[in-house]
Structure formats: structure tokens, C-alpha cells
């Protein structure tokens, strides 16, 4: 049939670009995420200019039509190529792309800033948007969400999309199980596909020490009626035949865990909360707070001032910086985590696989790409989002060792996001510094999978409908009092 294909790799039509723009995805990064253009085997070489041209023709500004972030590698080559490097010879670095010197044209905010709002949520990631939605459902509709960039610019748009109930504390299991329920109904309830697929989570234990960790969790999981089971290497290979069974001693598998496509969660929460009266303003950076006594009275932004009753800090890795604007110190330590995606293949991998100890994890996305990452013990604290060869080297070697056939998968794109790490790997909730300055941060590497459940509880707590124990336990004061119970089942 007659179609004007603008991105031949992903079959994106010019009409889709126009629809995305009309739906409010005006900047090129957002159009990329909404339409999928530029995410296939050519990585935008054949379509970037055409889409920029169309955005300008539709009335977009040069800042909105600016090219999307350059992501290595320039050509798709097998993981085996990167496995040829010795990561020890590649010292840690801030990575690429290097931001160009001088000012950059910024996209316009997507609407005027109101002079006041009952609740101002700083941070338009999944935490803030899910909270805006849950508040609006509870009748609190004078809510303003401020996002410095486009939706999905931060960790919410950069994570691997895993959602699992396999945790090591009752609280985390409870929250994650609730999120899994929400994921299963999100598309039907919120009217946008999130491609939730229960392929399970398979944890692999390479040493006796990790086997003990899995065994310890098992009793807890069964108490919460999770279907987690310990598997031998042979049984693990029945689930993922491509694994090298000599590389681990045992595994734990819960068939009810799964993966999602993260981006549409934000669009769904934003659209539904706006339909109920909330406002979501993109490209509006917070620059400071007006305080008086024990309260914050107004939020200052690059586009003006907003008076408010309550401020919620839901900025993920930037929460510490934003709290500091109000003179409030948080113990969070943002830490970069790198990730990559390969060419799309027909379905071959059902679960998300995670190797304890190395932090390697990988799954197959709905589109068929292998999505995988791995933490680096030498990564210093700091908000960094550059990409390194060191990561490619480390990931490629571990991946090829774990499942040798994957060494042939071609890497399309690498990027990084920030974990919002706290001293005990648990979140920071409740008021801090000011009685109306509420924190919703510190979810380490699992904020995305906790957000839907936490937002419900937070909205209940803010509207006096409930007072979940997490708002007692996870206050910032716990660090000073030394009342911390570490969560140790972090991956990546």
C-alpha cells in the first residue's frame, strides 16, 4: 500500500511523525521515542535529517529539531569485537558524547506555567508522573509536574524494563508484586501499550556464596506465595538453552516476573493525569525554592515562579541536587550504569537473566533486541551519562561467557543512566528539611519497577487515606539514627 516511509529500518511513516508532533511530542528526541524512528539497524543515518526537516516544517524550533544524542557504535558489529578488548586497560571515564561547548538551543516548554498549584512535583519521571496520576484519581487535581527535559530523558527512559517480585525483604516483595499487578492491567486501564510480558526472571549463582543467597530468599518468597524455584544448571538450560551451564552452580526462577517497555508508562501516566486536570510541563528546569520558616512557599523555574502548598522531590539521580537547592542534604549517591541494545532477532530468550556477583543482566525486548547492562564496581558517584568502551569490553566478555552464542549479536547502541543509590539501598520517603518538602527518591536501580506501587501508597499517605510502614521506615532521619536494614538483592 502507499506509504511514505521515513525510517525504513523501523517502518516509520511520515504520517506517524506528524501524528506524534500533533500529540505533543514536538522535539526530535520525543518523536524518536514515540515513533521508534532511528532506533533500528541504521541508527538514524538515513532518516534523522528527514524527521528534523518535518519537525521544522510543522513549526518546530531549531532547538526542537536538534539531532538526537549521538550513541556509539557507528556501525553494528558483534559483541565478539568488543570482547577483544581488555577492560583493565581502559580506565574509567565520563564517556561520550562530549557535550559541545557553548549554549545549545533548547526546546520550548509544552505550555504556560501556572502561577500556583497545590502540589508541585519536581521530576517528570515515572515516580512523579505516577504520583500525579494517583493524586488526580484521589481528587487532588491541582498538581503540576515539572520536567527539565523531555519525558523519558532520565532513568525512566534508560532502564532495562525488568519487573520482578524476587527480592530479599518483605517490603520490596510486597511493592514489586503490586507493580506486577499494575503492569498486567496498565495497557487496558491507561490506554497505551507497555508490552508487559511475563517471561520470568532467572537469577544465576556462580559461587557457593550466591547459592546461599538464593536459598535464603526462597523461604521468604514462598511465604509470600511467589512461585520461585531453585534450578540446577541443567534445569536453567531448559529455560535458556543458550546458557553455558558450567558457569554457575544453581539458579532461581520465578515465572511470574517479567519485562516491560518503559517509555509508554510515562506517556500513559502523563496523559491520564492531565485528563483529570493535572499539568505536566516539559523543558522547565527548577532553579530554586522560596522558603519561609518550616515551609517551602514557591518553586522557582527557568520560566517563572509557582506558589505551592506541597513540593515533591521525585528527581531520581538529580534528587540530591534539587534538595540542595532548598538547602536540604540527602545521602543519595547517584551512580552511572551503562546499558546497550543489539539488533532485533526473532524471539529466542524468554526470561530476564541476571548473574549474581558480576551484575550482568540481559533480556529480549518486545521488538527482539537483546537489552543488557552490567554495573562497574569502579564507577564513582556522580551524575554522568556518557558511554564508554570499558563498558562494552566488560559487558561483551561476560555476556559471551554466560551465553556464548550471543557473542555474534551486533550492538546497535549504548547509553547510560543513573542509579539513585542510598547507603542501605532503600528509598528516601517522607518530609525532609521542610514540613511540605516530600521526598520520593533513592530507589537505586529499581525505581521504575517500584514506582507504580509506591505512587499509590504515597498518594494515599498524602491524602490521609493510609499510612504505609514505608513512610515510617524510609525517612531520611533513619540514616542519622542508624536504623537501616540493607536490601542486598540489587543487580546491575
Amino acid at each position: 500500500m502507499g506509504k511514505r516511509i521515513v525510517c525504513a529500518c523501523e517502518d516509520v511513516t511520515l504520517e506517524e511523525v506528524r501524528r506524534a508532533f500533533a500529540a505533543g511530542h514536538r522535539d526530535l528526541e520525543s518523536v524518536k521515542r514515540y515513533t521508534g524512528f532511528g532506533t533500528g539497524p541504521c541508527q538514524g543515518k538515513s532518516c534523522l535529517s528527514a524527521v528534523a526537516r518535518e519537525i521544522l516544517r510543522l513549526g518546530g524550533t531549531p532547538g526542537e529539531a536538534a539531532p538526537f544524542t549521538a550513541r556509539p557504535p557507528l556501525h553494528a558489529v558483534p559483541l565478539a569485537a568488543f570482547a577483544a578488548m581488555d577492560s583493565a586497560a581502559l580506565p574509567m571515564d565520563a564517556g561520550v558524547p562530549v557535550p559541545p561547548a557553548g549554549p545549545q538551543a533548547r526546546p520550548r516548554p509544552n505550555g504556560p506555567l501556572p502561577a500556583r498549584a497545590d502540589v508541585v512535583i519536581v521530576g517528570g519521571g515515572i515516580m512523579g508522573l505516577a504520583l500525579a496520576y494517583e493524586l488526580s484519581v484521589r481528587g487532588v487535581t491541582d498538581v503540576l509536574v515539572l520536567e527539565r527535559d523531555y519525558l523519558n530523558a532520565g532513568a525512566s527512559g534508560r532502564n532495562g524494563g525488568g519487573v520482578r517480585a524476587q527480592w530479599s525483604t518483605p517490603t520490596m516483595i510486597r511493592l514489586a508484586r503490586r507493580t506486577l499487578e499494575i503492569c498486567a492491567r496498565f495497557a487496558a486501564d491507561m490506554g497505551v501499550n507497555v508490552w508487559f510480558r511475563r517471561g520470568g526472571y532467572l537469577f544465576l549463582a556462580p559461587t557457593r556464596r550466591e547459592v546461599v543467597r538464593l536459598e535464603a530468599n526462597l523461604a521468604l518468597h514462598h511465604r509470600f506465595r511467589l512461585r520461585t524455584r531453585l534450578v540446577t544448571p541443567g534445569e536453567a538450560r531448559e529455560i535458556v538453552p543458550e546458557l553455558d551451564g558450567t558457569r554457575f552452580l544453581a539458579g532461581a526462577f520465578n515465572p511470574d516476573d517479567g519485562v516491560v517497555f518503559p517509555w509508554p508508562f510515562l506517556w500513559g501516566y502523563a496523559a491520564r493525569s492531565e485528563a483529570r486536570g493535572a499539568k505536566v510541563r516539559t523543558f522547565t528546569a527548577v532553579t530554586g525554592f522560596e522558603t519561609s520558616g518550616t515551609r517551602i512557599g514557591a518553586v522557582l523555574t527557568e520560566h517563572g515562579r509557582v506558589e505551592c502548598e506541597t513540593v515533591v522531590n521525585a528527581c531520581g539521580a538529580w534528587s540530591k541536587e534539587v534538595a540542595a537547592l532548598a538547602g536540604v542534604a540527602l545521602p543519595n549517591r547517584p551512580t552511572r550504569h551503562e546499558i546497550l541494545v543489539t539488533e532485533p532477532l526473532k524471539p529466542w530468550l524468554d526470561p530476564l537473566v541476571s548473574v549474581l556477583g558480576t551484575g550482568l543482566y540481559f533480556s529480549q525486548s518486545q521488538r527482539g533486541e537483546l537489552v543488557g547492562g552490567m554495573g562497574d564496581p569502579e564507577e564513582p558517584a556522580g551524575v554522568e551519562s556518557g558511554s564508554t568502551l570499558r563498558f562494552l569490553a566488560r559487558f561483551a566478555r561476560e555476556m559471551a561467557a554466560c551465553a556464548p552464542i550471543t557473542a555474534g549479536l551486533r550492538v546497535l547502541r549504548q547509553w547510560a543512566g543513573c542509579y539513585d543509590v542510598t547507603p542501605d539501598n532503600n528509598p528516601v520517603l517522607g518530609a525532609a528539611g521542610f514540613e511540605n518538602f516530600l521526598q520520593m527518591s533513592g530507589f537505586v536501580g529499581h525505581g521504575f519497577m517500584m514506582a507504580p506501587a509506591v505512587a499509590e501508597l504515597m498518594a494515599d499517605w498524602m491524602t490521609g487515606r493510609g499510612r504505609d510502614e514505608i513512610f515510617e521506615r524510609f525517612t531520611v532521619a533513619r540514616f542519622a539514627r542508624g536504623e537501616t536494614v540493607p536490601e542486598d538483592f540489587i543487580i546491575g
Partner: protein
Amino acid sequence: MPRLPDPRFAPDCAIAVDGKRIAARAGESVAAAMLAAGRPLLARSAKYHRPRGPFCLAGSCGSCLVRVDGEPNVRACRTACRDGLRVETQNAFPSAAHDLLGVVDRVTPRGLDHHHLATWSRLANRIAVRLSRSLAGLGRLGDRAPSPYPPAAEERFDALVVGAGPAGLGAAQVLAAAGRRVLLVEEAARLGGRLRCGYALPDEPALGWAYEIAQAVRRAGGEVALSSSALGLWRDGGRPLAAVHADVPSPRLRLVRADRIVLCTGGTPQPPDFENADLPGILSGRGLAAALAEDGVVPGERAAILGTGLEAEALAARLRSAGMTSEVVAGEVARARGRARVSGLVLAGGSLVDCDTVAVATVPAPACELAREAGARVAFDPALATFAIQAGEDGSTGVPGLWAAGEATGARSAAQAALAGRRAGEAARG
């Protein structure tokens, strides 16, 4: 007439494509062999299963991915033919030529809104998620793990020049003459960039010039690396570190540090944006001209040329001399016609251009990716309607140690590009 009647271009081997024997010349690309065989259809597209074939013939687009000897998603335009090579088309049932899933395209005339597909009920959604997953992806997982690459150790050169077209050759010439050890990397298997097209435009250097410069680079202790792609300019260790993937003789990764980097990455062919511009048989003009010059490939009988100016005229003349009818299309194209390959162009006025090949000779989009990784500025050039690297007369990009020249910085003739390359070389020479 699939090939020029020159004994140099006579097929000397055969590859198997979906089990069918295709005559080929050892060393030419699978895409070239398929074009010469009159079979531009090589694949089906990711979502709508539309017919796809090679477009850029230069490794940049993603339209010619095939399975080769059990390895999925390999670019046909970057895969050399040898006798017995087993090529399979992908993402099609049973084959790209007869794909039953092509029905997806026909039942979705306005496209498929995947965001809102089957969101009206939980059950419908679960079924849609399962179904869409089973259809997603291009190739199947490979038959076997690849052989490990040899260890990659850091190499040092005085200068790294990326791209061996007119600009890169100009830069390498000056640097080598100054005694610098240059690594000149070129993605293609041959030197010359657009000089390979044989257009012989006014003031354009002859291809022989490229080989003289290659000699000079080697005499100065440098190296010319063909079939070698710069994958990126990372900064591990705090200084630019290029990773280069060499395809031949066997794949290996090279890590290159150089205090001077000159980006002469040229342009990326851009597909046209009219309706059905993704049909097989619509090809980059430069890619086609090079295939004609080097492999004698004559892709059909009737060519329509898109573009204006000397290059479009030269391409039309080249194709005519190869025995095709060949005209530069005057007027705006509304849509292409054809099923498995293009059969004509419908102009905005309604008139029809009868053709079996469309060659695109519009100005390519500057390849800015490496420059942007390194922090150079790019800007939208309204005249070109694409982004271009912002570089000074001497190729300076504002990033210490990084210069850019040639078509990567905007529309340049080959002669202008060579001059700009020399200037960048002079600036980088120090």
C-alpha cells in the same frame, strides 16, 4: 543485460539465495550480485513486511540485511561473494519474494498504531502482546557462536584520518608529506569515495590520485586500512580513543590513539521521501555508479535519475553508456509504483516515468556522528536541509585535536572537498 560485456566482469562463482543459484563475481558484494541478477528484492521490512532491497550500497542504511552462512542481519552490500555462499532472506514467510505476511502492509493503509493496538481489553491485549512478539525481530539467532576476535591492543599514530574520499585523501596527502604517520581508514573495500563513481566531473581528481596518496601514506610509515569502519570516538582514559573494526582478512578490532583526528566521513545517501520510496530498485546513485564501474553491474533497462546538477547528469550519462535508457526526472515525484521492484514514478502533475531503476543523485546528508560524539557542533543547513559539522576554513571544529573537511561539513564538489581536506591536513600537521 545484467553486466557490462567486458570479460573483467564475467561471473566466476555462484552464491545460493534462498536455495536459488545466483551467478556472481568473487569479491563483489552480495548486493551487487543480486542487482546484476535483476533481483533487487532482498528482504522484508520490520513491521509491514514491505519489499526491501539494497539502497545505499555503502553499509549505512539497513535495507539489505540477510542471513549469510547462518549469521543473521548481515548487510548484503558489505558481504563479499564467494563460491557456495549461502544467503537467506529474512523476516518473511516463506521467502522475501513470496511473503504471506505482506498482507500486513495491505490491511494497514494508514499504518499501524502500535501504542494503542488492542488496549480495549486485558485479554485482547495479552493476545496482541504475544502475537506481536512472535512477529517482531528480523533474523533468527545465529547457528553458532562466532570465532573469538584476536586481542585488541592500543595502537598509536600521529594522525587518524577517517574516510578515504577526496577530503580524507587530501588531508592524508599533506600529513604524510610532513612525515606524519597516518592511519587512513576507509569503510569501503576500495579507496576514493565518490571518485569511484567514474563521473570525471570538472576539476575532479582522477582515481589514480588516490592510489598515489596511499603510496605516500605508506612511505611515511602510515597505513591505509580498507574495509575498516571507525565505530566511534570514545574517550576512555581521558583522550580520544577510536575503535576501528577491520572486516578483512578476518574480523578484528583496533584501538587507535592519535593526537590529530581529521574526520572526512563524507555523506550518507538519503532515500527520497515520496510514497513508496522504499521499493527495491530505488538506489543511491553513487553506490550504483561504483557498482557499475567496479563490477560492471547494470541493474535494469530503464533508469530514472533524481537530483539536479552535474552529478545527476554525469550519473545519467554513465548509465546510458552502460546501455540503459536514463533520464534525469524533471518535476516533483508524487509516488513510486511497483510491487517487488519499482516499475515507474508518478509525478506531481500525474504524468508517469516508466523505469525499473531509480538512482538518487541528491546531495547526501553529512555524516556527523563521530564529530558529535567528540563534542563538535553541528547545525541544520537550510540549503541542504540536513545537519552538517560546523568547521572553519581550516577544518577546525572547536574541539582540540579534531578537524573536519569535505562533504561532512556541507555540500562540496570533489575538487572542493580535496582542497578542504588539504587545508585541514595543513592545520593538523602542526
